[in-house]
């Protein structure tokens, strides 16, 4: 099992309430852009923060790009004090967001999401419309690069009335 699958399985195994966003969501929606990490928007419900921290500790998550000697304690208090984190883990890169720019928190993402079976794991995936909103709002070069194709896919769905298989 490769990294994207393992990342999604991790959240499912620990019953973490989250919505898949960014590259994997774009891929699920038909984008041909490549991604190397799993990004999710997580629920900030107290019980969920405990499950999230347990999940991340189980794969030895460390802050990506931070000095190795930087003291970092990963427990449920960690995401309580900050929203967004990027991690290196034993199963690859995982980014967790408490809020998605232009869209909002987990509940907002969940409202505009669909459930897909990815690797036989039921996953909530953010809608194409909200993914476009998020990428436009983030405005980083890599987000802007992904936009034309996502907008073309959305237009295609609207014009042809073809929904996801």
């Amino acid at each position, binding site marked *: 099992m490769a990294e994207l699958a393992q990342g999604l399985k991790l959240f499912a195994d620990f019953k973490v309430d989250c919505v898949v966003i960014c590259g994997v969501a774009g*891929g699920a929606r*038909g984008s041909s852009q*490549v991604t*190397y990490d799993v990004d999710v928007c997580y629920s900030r419900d107290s019980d969920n923060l405990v499950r999230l921290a347990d999940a991340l500790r189980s794969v030895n998550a460390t802050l990506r790009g931070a000095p190795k000697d930087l003291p970092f304690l990963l427990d449920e208090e960690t995401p309580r004090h900050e929203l967004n984190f990027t991690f290196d883990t034993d199963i690859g890169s995982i980014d967790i967001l408490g809020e998605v720019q232009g869209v909002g928190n987990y509940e907002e993402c969940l409202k505009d999401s669909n459930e897909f079976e990815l690797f036989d794991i039921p996953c909530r995936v953010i809608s194409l419309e909200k993914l476009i909103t998020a990428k436009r709002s983030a405005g980083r070069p890599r987000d802007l690069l992904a936009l034309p*194709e996502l907008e073309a*896919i959305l237009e295609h769905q609207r014009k042809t009335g073809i929904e996801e298989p």
Partner: protein
Amino acid sequence: MDKLEYTEAERWLIEPKPGTAAARARDFGVDLSLTVSNLRMTPAERVKRLDDFQHEMRRLRQAVLLAKQNGRTRSGTKAVR
């Protein structure tokens, strides 16, 4: 190789009308035939392909790193450092 047959709906992307998002994407450099091939799959198949590709890229990267560590490429020439 057989010529790919596109449905009418797929031609929205393959032969986009001026002023559409598809035309902008094509002009931006997006290969919309790849997009069409993705859209023919289910979301699960798309993410599986993404995962397979990522896995192969990682293997390739590791092979290149190994070759650099050994100081030579497979062709026998000195690796670029």
